[in-house]
């Protein structure tokens, strides 16, 4: 499995990186930590590139490398990578791999499992390109600030599951909230939740929302089957049936200590683009991390 963790400034990215690495650890996944630098106007892109080359020559790190250095130190402090006195971040080499993508090549064995990537440009464009070239299964990104539009676009255009890390605290004890339905994405969410819960010994609260439709009985069956699946796997779980508007019901049910994992909407892409979708609305309204599985 390949996981992509997108980080921004040092102050805001700690929860994203922490949760992202926990998920990566649970899946024993190859992880790429990417910093996407500011989009440069076409007028100035070559000038900026020349200045950055100059900064490299003078051992003045180009923007973004400092953030990656912080990420490296964070991983070391949390023991995600082994502390090795012979390998310091300062030994790094910046490899210019293609247009607007640079890899920090850490001497030694770390780089086999964890890649540090520096990209420049429009964030959706860069993450989309990163997912396309490296076939990432999950993209994890911070959810602070007014990024609602960006999260919508990420879910819409990135060909991987997307996790929006909002209001995550390292010290909180979390439970997985798993809304299930009859979509393909929901099956994928069940799969991810099972692996993560097993690895981190977290309880799962399976929920389904009935809307007084003909599909209600089908949803009850899916809920029972999922409950059975987790019980057989030895995962502590509960199953709850909610009623009403799915978005409001899930948002009301999920608390600050929830990790919501749900499937992507099977709705037509054009409709989703212009009118949004239930999972996107849930991700936007919940005040906790939300994973939308694809």
């Amino acid at each position, binding site marked *: 499995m390949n996981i992509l963790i997108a980080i921004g400034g040092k102050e805001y990215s700690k929860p994203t990186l922490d949760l992202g690495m926990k998920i990566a650890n649970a899946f024993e996944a190859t992880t790429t930590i990417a910093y996407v630098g500011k989009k*440069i*106007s076409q*007028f100035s*892109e070559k000038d900026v590139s020349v200045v950055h080359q*100059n900064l490299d020559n003078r051992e*003045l790190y180009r923007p973004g490398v400092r953030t990656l250095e912080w990420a490296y130190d964070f991983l070391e402090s949390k023991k995600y990578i082994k502390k090795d006195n012979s390998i310091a971040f300062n030994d790094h080499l910046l490899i210019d791999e293609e247009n607007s993508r640079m890899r920090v090549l850490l001497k030694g064995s770390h780089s086999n499992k964890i890649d540090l990537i520096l990209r420049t440009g429009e964030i959706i464009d860069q993450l989309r390109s990163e997912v396309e070239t490296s076939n990432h299964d999950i993209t994890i990104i911070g959810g602070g600030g007014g990024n609602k539009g960006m999260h919508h676009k990420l879910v819409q*255009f990135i060909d991987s599951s997307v996790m929006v890390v909002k209001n995550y605290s390292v010290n909180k004890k979390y439970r997985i909230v798993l809304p299930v339905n009859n979509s393909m994405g929901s099956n994928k969410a069940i799969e991810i939740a099972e692996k993560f819960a097993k690895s981190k010994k977290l309880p799962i609260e399976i929920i389904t929302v009935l809307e007084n439709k003909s599909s209600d009985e089908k949803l009850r069956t899916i809920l029972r089957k999922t409950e059975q699946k987790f019980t057989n796997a030895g995962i502590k779980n509960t199953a709850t049936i909610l009623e009403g508007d799915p978005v409001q019901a899930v948002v009301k049910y999920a608390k600050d200590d929830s990790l919501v994992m749900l499937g992507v909407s099977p709705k*037509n892409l054009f*409709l989703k683009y212009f009118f949004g979708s239930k999972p996107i609305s849930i991700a936007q309204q919940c005040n906790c991390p939300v994973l939308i599985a694809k």
Partner: protein
Amino acid sequence: MLSFLNLLNKFGAMNESYKIISSSILYWFSQKKWFVFSVILAIFLLNLSTPIGLTVAGYHSLIILLMVFTLVTFEPIPFPAIALLTLVLQVLLGVAPPDVVAESFMNDAVLFVMGSLMFAIAIVHQGLDIRLAKIIIGIFGRSKRLFLGGLMTISAILSSFLGEHTIIAIMLPIGLSVIKNIDTKQTDGRNAVLLTLFSVAYGTIIGSIGTPSGGARNVIMINYLQEFSSINIDYWEWMKHAYPILIVQLVVAYFVLQFAFPTTLKNIQIKGYKKKIAKSNTRDNINHLFSSIIILLIVISWFLFNEELGLGIIALCGALIFMICGMVSWEVINKNTNWGVILLFAATISLGFQINETGASSWLVTKFNVLLALMPESSFDISWSFMAILTGLTANFFTSSATISLLGPMAIELQPSDVSFALSAAIASGFSFLTVISSPTAMILYSTGLVSTKTFFKVGLLMFTSSIAILYLMSKFYWVTL
């Protein structure tokens, strides 16, 4: 409607290849929406009747102008594509025949853009920053505030001759070296970092108005003046007009920055940096000596031979000498030159010529003068202020050279016999203090990640308004004495 949506929904849910195709179409649309918008707008305008007093070719040239403004501002397609579109549309919409478009595509201003970009890369490649740092510390190193003032002044002087994109690339490493390891979480440290970076940036931005070679916009305006008004402004004449403004602006900028970023400067490490660069052996570096000689020769040539040879050819000579001497390779120049910008400038200059030739600029100015006649105050002051503020603001969202290449003909048309309008427009377009997209310097400063757009705008607003006031006073009271 609802059943159609349901049908679409069911169909979409079933077909995987349909999903991939629709996702690609949606992504294309989300990335190119401004292109789609500009095309729809152009089609709509083309279907309206031509305004009275304007030729069809003139009307079409203004539609292309509107498209170019939208496309350059929002960048939905690459610059070379915008350039090619501008040329193609001029012919397709009957603005000018192919030969005329091709002819207006290349002139001395375009050669200057090309030459100065290549010359800049050759200069930056020589690593002159260490030598310059030694000079600045030698002259201004007695106090930290004096050092920052010196950094700003040297940046301004060099930028006035060699262009801001060259000097910011050389001076920024010096600025970043003295603020290395400063803790920006504390206000004093953060202000020290911002004061240093802004000193370099404002120095280079202000400097670029000083001489014709300071920025492509200056050369474009000189070319337009020659073509449209038969007024020749040589290198020295430009300097006489612009350099006093530059000096006053520098003094104002120094105090604006001290006011905006109050700091004790205790964290600035001039001594440490001095020790560091003292170790590097630059004295024997023959490349630096040759580079300085070449730069000096080129600047002297701009002074002495600009009328005979043209500024563009002289700039090209600079890059040529560096390449012939083997001090920079073609690969380095080719890799780092922004060919897209050269093409775009060539195309916008070509469009600027057609806007003038088709009478579109005269038509716009006539309409503006009708409005002006309704004003009770002195029309000269109002039209000057309108023109200077318009070019200044447009340049902040559209970059200065592109602004002048498109609005320059109109600025000249406002007062064809008065050079002060054209010069004011070119100089005001260099006041790129408001947005980070306005100039390479601003974008480079922003790309360090140490300066936010909000900070840039807040300080820049003060600098922009004071610069417009300085320009007004100079044009009103000093230029008339020349």
